[in-house]
C-alpha cells in the first residue's frame, strides 16, 4: 500500500511534467503540421537559463524569467527560421528543427560545458512536505505538481475562454477563413510556437533541478515526448494529457515488478533452466525492461490505432 501510494504520486509528478512538455509540442504540431524536433531542446534551455538566472537573482525570479527568455527564442525561431523555410514544405521545416536541436546542444556545450551543472532545488522547498506511512514525500515534488496543474488550468482557460484562444482554435482548422476575417494568422502561429516553447522552458525550470541539468537532457526526454504525442494522438491536447499520465505511470510502476517471462512459463507449467534456449531473454524482468515499455506501447498503438488515443488524423 505504501509502495503503491508513493509510486502513484511519483508517477503523477512525472506524468504532469511530461504533459507540460508534450502539450506545447502537440499544439505546435496541430497548428503548423510540423513535428518540432527541437522541442526538447527548449526544455533543456529552460533548465540552463534557470540555472544561470537563479545563480544571479534567485530561483523565484528564474521561474518567470527563464520561460520568457525561452519563449522569446521560440518566437525568433518561428519568425526568422520556420517562416522562411515554410515555403519549401514540411520536409524543409522538419529538417530545420532537426538541425536546430543539434545547434542548441552544441551551443550548450560551448557555454556550459559537457558536464552536468549544479542547478539545485531552492532551500525553501528542500524539506519533506508530508509522510505516507513512513516514507517522506519531498515538498519540491508537490511544488512541481502544483506548477503543472496550475499551468494545465491556465492553458485550458486561455484556449477556451479567451479571445486569442478562440482565434488559435479557429486557426487550427480554418487558417484561411481566420485570415480573411482580418486576423494576422502568421502572428498567431508565432504566438503558439513561442507559447509552446515557454511551456517546455517552464518544464525545464522545474525539471532541471529535480533531475539533472546536462547537455544530454534534451535527447533523453525528447524521444519520450514523441512517444507521448504519438500515443495520445497527434494534435490532441486531451490525448497528450492522458498519454503523459499513462507513460509516466508505466515508467514509474514498472520498476516495482520483478516478474519475467520465466514466471509466466512456470505458471503455464513449462520447465526452464539456465541451459534453455533464449534464457537470457526470458529472464529479463519488467523492471529491467521498464525503459523500453513506452516504445513498445507506441508501436502497439501505431499498429492497432494509428491515429492514437484521441487523435483525429489517420497516420
Amino acid at each position, binding site marked *: 500500500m505504501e509502495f503503491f501510494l508513493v509510486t502513484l504520486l*511519483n508517477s503523477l509528478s512525472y506524468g504532469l511534467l511530461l504533459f507540460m512538455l508534450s502539450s506545447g509540442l502537440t499544439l505546435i504540431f496541430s497548428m503548423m503540421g510540423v513535428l518540432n524536433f527541437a522541442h526538447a531542446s527548449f526544455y533543456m534551455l529552460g533548465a540552463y537559463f534557470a540555472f544561470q538566472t537563479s545563480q544571479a537573482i534567485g530561483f523565484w525570479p528564474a521561474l518567470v524569467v527563464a520561460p520568457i527568455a525561452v519563449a522569446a527564442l521560440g518566437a525568433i525561431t518561428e519568425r526568422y527560421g520556420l517562416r522562411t523555410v515554410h515555403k519549401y514544405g514540411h520536409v524543409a521545416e522538419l529538417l530545420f528543427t532537426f538541425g536546430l536541436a543539434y545547434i542548441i546542444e552544441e551551443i550548450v556545450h560551448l557555454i556550459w560545458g559537457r558536464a*552536468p551543472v549544479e542547478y539545485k532545488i531552492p532551500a525553501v522547498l528542500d524539506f519533506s512536505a508530508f509522510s505516507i506511512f513512513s*516514507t517522506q*514525500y519531498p515538498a519540491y515534488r508537490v511544488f512541481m505538481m502544483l506548477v503543472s496543474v496550475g499551468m494545465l488550468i491556465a492553458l485550458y482557460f486561455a484556449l477556451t475562454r479567451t479571445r486569442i484562444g478562440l482565434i488559435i482554435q479557429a486557426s487550427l482548422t480554418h487558417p484561411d477563413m481566420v485570415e480573411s476575417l482580418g486576423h494576422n494568422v502568421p502572428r498567431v502561429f508565432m504566438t503558439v510556437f513561442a507559447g509552446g516553447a515557454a511551456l517546455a522552458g517552464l518544464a525545464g525550470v522545474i525539471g532541471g533541478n529535480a*533531475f539533472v541539468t546536462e547537455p*544530454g537532457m534534451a535527447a533523453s526526454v525528447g524521444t519520450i515526448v514523441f512517444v507521448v504525442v504519438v500515443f495520445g494522438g497527434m494534435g490532441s491536447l486531451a490525448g497528450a494529457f492522458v498519454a503523459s499520465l499513462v507513460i509516466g505511470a508505466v*515508467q514509474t510502476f514498472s*520498476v516495482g515488478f*520483478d516478474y519475467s517471462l520465466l514466471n509466466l512459463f512456470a505458471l503455464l507449467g513449462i520447465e526452464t533452466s539456465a541451459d534453455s534456449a533464449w534464457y537470457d531473454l526470458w529472464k529479463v524482468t519488467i*523492471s529491467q525492461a521498464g525503459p523500453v515499455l513506452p516504445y513498445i506501447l507506441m508501436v502497439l498503438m501505431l499498429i492497432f490505432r494509428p491515429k492514437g488515443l484521441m487523435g483525429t488524423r489517420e497516420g
Partner: protein
Amino acid sequence: MIGQYIRGSAIAAALFAVGMGAASANTVKIAYLEGLSGPFANVGEVGLRHLQFAADRINAKGGVLGQKIEVIPFDTKTSPQEAQLVFKQLVDQGIRYMMQGNGSAVAIALSEALGKHNSREPEKTVLYMNYGAVDPSLTNDKCNFYHFRFDADVDMKMQALTTYMAQQKDITKVYLINQDYAFGQSVAKAGRAMLTKKRPDIQIVGDDLHPLGKIKDFAPYVAKIKASGADAVISGNWGNDIALLIKAAKDAGLKAKFYTYYAGGLGTPPVIGEAGVGNLKQVTVFHSNIGGSGAAAEVEAYRKRFPDSKDDFYWTTIMTAVDMLTRAMEQTKSTDPTKVALAMENMKATQVTGEAYMRPENHQLVQPIFVSTFSKANGKDVKFDVERTGFGFQTDARIEAKDTVLPTTCKFQRPKG
C-alpha cells in the same frame, strides 16, 4: 542518424586537431580515454585533473629520461564502440601509453582491441593503465599482458566489504541495486555470493539492475527498497547514478545504511550532507583520512593546485600508475611499452596508503583496502572533509594488502623481453 555521424566526426576532428597540434616529438604521450561528454562527463574530468596533476609533478622534476610527460585527452562518451574507434586514432597518432578507468564495459572493449593490436604489431605495442575499471574478468579470464590495473577489483573490494558487514549484527535484510552492465552485474553477483556465505541468516530482499546513466529519478527504486524492508543497501553505482540514488533515498527519508563502492566520489557528499552521517559507507583503496603524513600532504597539494570546492583528491591509483610507469622507464632506460611492462610486473610501490606491489600473474595491483563511514569532520581522525562539505570519511576497517589477494584464472603469454 546522419546528424549523429556528422556530430561525431566533428568532435573527432576537433580532438584530432588538438592532439596533433599539441603533440611534440620528444614527449612521452599518455592518452586519456574517458567519457568527456555525456552523463559521466563530470567523472571523466575529475580523472583528467588527477592525471594532469601526476604528470606535472614528474615534469617539474625534469620529466622521465629527459622527456616531458604529455597528457592527451580523448572523448569515448563512455561507450565501448566509441572507445574502440578512439583507440584506432591513438594508435594512428603513434601514442604508446593509455589510461582509462570509468566503465568496465569500455575497459573490456579496449582490452580486447589492445590485445589484437599488440599481437599484430609487436613493434608498436601499446600499454594500458587501468585506474578504476574493476570488473574481475579484466584480470581473470579476459586478462591481457599489456593491461595493468591499479584499483582493487570488484571481488577484492566485496570480500573486504562483506567481511565488515558480517560483523554488523544489526543487518538482517540486504538490497542490491546496481548498474546493468559488466561491472554492476559483478557487484550483484559477488555481493550475493559472499554475503550469503558469511552470514547465512541475512536475507537478500532485492536485486535490481538499472540502465547505466539513464535514470534521472531514482524515487521509484527507493520506494521499492523501502517496501522491501531492507536495512542495508549494497550498490556499486558511480557518478551521477550514485549521487541521484542517494538524493532520492534522502528525500524519501529511507533509513537503510548504504554500503557503496563510490559514494565518496565527487558529487554525492554534497547531496546527502548531515543525513549521511553514520549511514553512508564505502569500500575503497583510498580516502582522505586514512592517516599518515603522506596522505595528508597529497590531499593538501592537490587542493592547492585545484582550489575549487568541487575538486578533491580521490584517485591514488592514477598517482601510483604514473609513478610505476616512470620508474619502470628509468629502470629500463626505455620508453618501449613491452620493456616497461616487463619491468612493471612484480614492481613494488610505496603509495600513501602503504606497501603495494604489482601481481605478476594477472597485473593487478595488490594494496590495502579501506571500509569507511561518512562522518562529521573533527580536525582529528576526520581531518579532511570531502568537497568542503564539513563531512568526511572515517576508517572503520583497514584490510592489509596480503589479505586482499584472491585466486586468479589469468593465463597470458609474456612477450620475450
